């Protein structure tokens, strides 16, 4: 029973219905009329209102007859009629027949003609009521038309209140990091004393230059060993220097066995007598 008519209802029906005797041709009038209705229910309501002011008093059978006549009239003029108007007309024919038929034929399951008529009357009344309420609502004093809100509500001043968050952990972390940063800043890397190989070689050359025989390297080193911290670097560099000098053939090295003291002597004496004192002296003199 839900019907469809895409046109907009614009409450023209009273005007249109009453314009029956105007100079319009009949075809025009009917076309305009149907366009003015929002579906069959609306048309029914229009026809009802034309007859009587009080819908509750209207005879549904009469109304059905009127509607069917109206549609037949339109058909006579071969006007295109939307399907739902025709469905309603067919339904009303059915309703009329039901109303005429004796009620004992009624089965319990299908509603009687009177019930159907009452239902239709109810729908018409409800639609009319809603239509009236819509108009009534619109007629009420309205905000912005008849009554007004404050023209310039100032609103409320918002003051942001900052709430600081901090956890004890954050605080401790910050403090610890700070302390560490500070102590790191106070630490100065002391310059390491490094005995370079070149230095060791120079020193060794001058010492060996004075020595004429095998000399234990520890003693040689001890003679120019500085601070204790420098001990390792001196030993390492001196050892490196002796190897370098031996490679160059400037000195000779001997060791009696693993972990035994190392002996060095100048090798510029051509003599094979490695024990020769004069040889090493001569070399040193050169």
């Amino acid at each position, binding site marked *: 029973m839900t019907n469809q008519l895409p046109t907009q209802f614009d*409450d023209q029906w009273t005007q249109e219905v009453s314009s029956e005797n105007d100079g319009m041709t009949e075809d025009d009038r009917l076309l305009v009329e149907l366009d003015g209705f*929002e*579906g*069959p229910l609306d048309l029914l309501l229009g026809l009802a209102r034309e007859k009587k002011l009080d819908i509750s008093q209207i005879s549904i059978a009469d109304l059905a007859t009127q509607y069917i006549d109206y549609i037949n009239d339109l058909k006579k003029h071969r006007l295109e009629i939307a399907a739902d108007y025709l469905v309603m007309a067919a339904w009303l024919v059915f309703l009329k027949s039901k109303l005429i038929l004796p009620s004992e034929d009624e089965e319990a399951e299908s509603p009687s003609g009177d019930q159907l008529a009452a239902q239709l009357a109810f729908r018409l009344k*409800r639609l009319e009521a*809603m239509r009236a309420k*819509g108009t009534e609502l619109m007629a*009420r004093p309205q*905000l912005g038309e008849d009554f007004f809100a404050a023209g310039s509500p100032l609103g409320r001043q918002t003051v942001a209140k900052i709430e600081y968050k901090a956890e004890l952990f954050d605080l401790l972390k910050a403090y610890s990091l700070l302390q560490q940063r500070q102590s790191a800043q106070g630490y100065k890397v002391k310059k390491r004393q490094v005995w370079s190989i070149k230095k060791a070689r120079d020193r060794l050359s001058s010492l060996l230059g004075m020595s004429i025989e095998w000399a234990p390297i520890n003693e040689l080193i001890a003679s120019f060993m500085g601070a204790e911290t420098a001990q390792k670097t001196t030993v390492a560099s001196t050892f490196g220097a002796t190897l370098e000098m031996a490679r160059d053939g400037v000195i000779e090295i001997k060791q009696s066995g693993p972990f035994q003291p190392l002996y060095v002597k100048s090798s510029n004496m051509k003599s094979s007598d490695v024990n020769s004192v004069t040889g090493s002296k001569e070399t040193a003199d050169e």
Partner: protein
Amino acid sequence: MSEERLESALEMPLDLERLDDLRIIEALIFASPEPLSEQALREELDEGVEVLALLEELATQYSNRGIHLVSIDGKWAFRTAADLAPFLTKYKIVKKKLSRVAQETLAIIAYHQPVTRAEIEDVRGVQTSSGTLDVLLETGWIKMRGRRRAPGRPITYGTTDLFLDQFGLSKIDDLPGLNELKGAGLLDGTVPASFEVPSSQKLETLMDDEVSLEDEDEGEE
């Protein structure tokens, strides 16, 4: 009117604290761009202050002034007195008039809420173009309330506080002729039994056969 005025003025409380609460409520409502709920007012005042009683007292004090204190679904606002409309025409906001269809649809939604589109169509006997509902939604007078617990879970529509404010209604029960229509059975009938006109309390919350719009899961089950 002036005698009434004097009377209401004489009712002013002599109790200073109460007077201050009245003044605070007055100022808060005045400053607010939107109607203020009793709850919102209560939050601003000391505990135990009988906000509703004070609001009613204020409303009485203003009842014959050029400004009225009105209640809109439990929210309060100052509005100019409707009888002064002719003097205030310069503030009129020219709005597009609602079409007849939209008016009718608005009335159906207001009187039948919560109502689905199919139910609106049942009352009107024709399909409702989505344009009509769009226009009404755009006015802010109606809203989608939820979904009906029924096959297809259709969306239910209802009116908003703005609707009440717009038409000077303090609650949905104040809709003109609501009780007569109810009495005549025009608001029920061929429609489901649950399809009844709600009282103002019911509007806030969903009905038994409604679910919230967000509650999509339930629909997919």
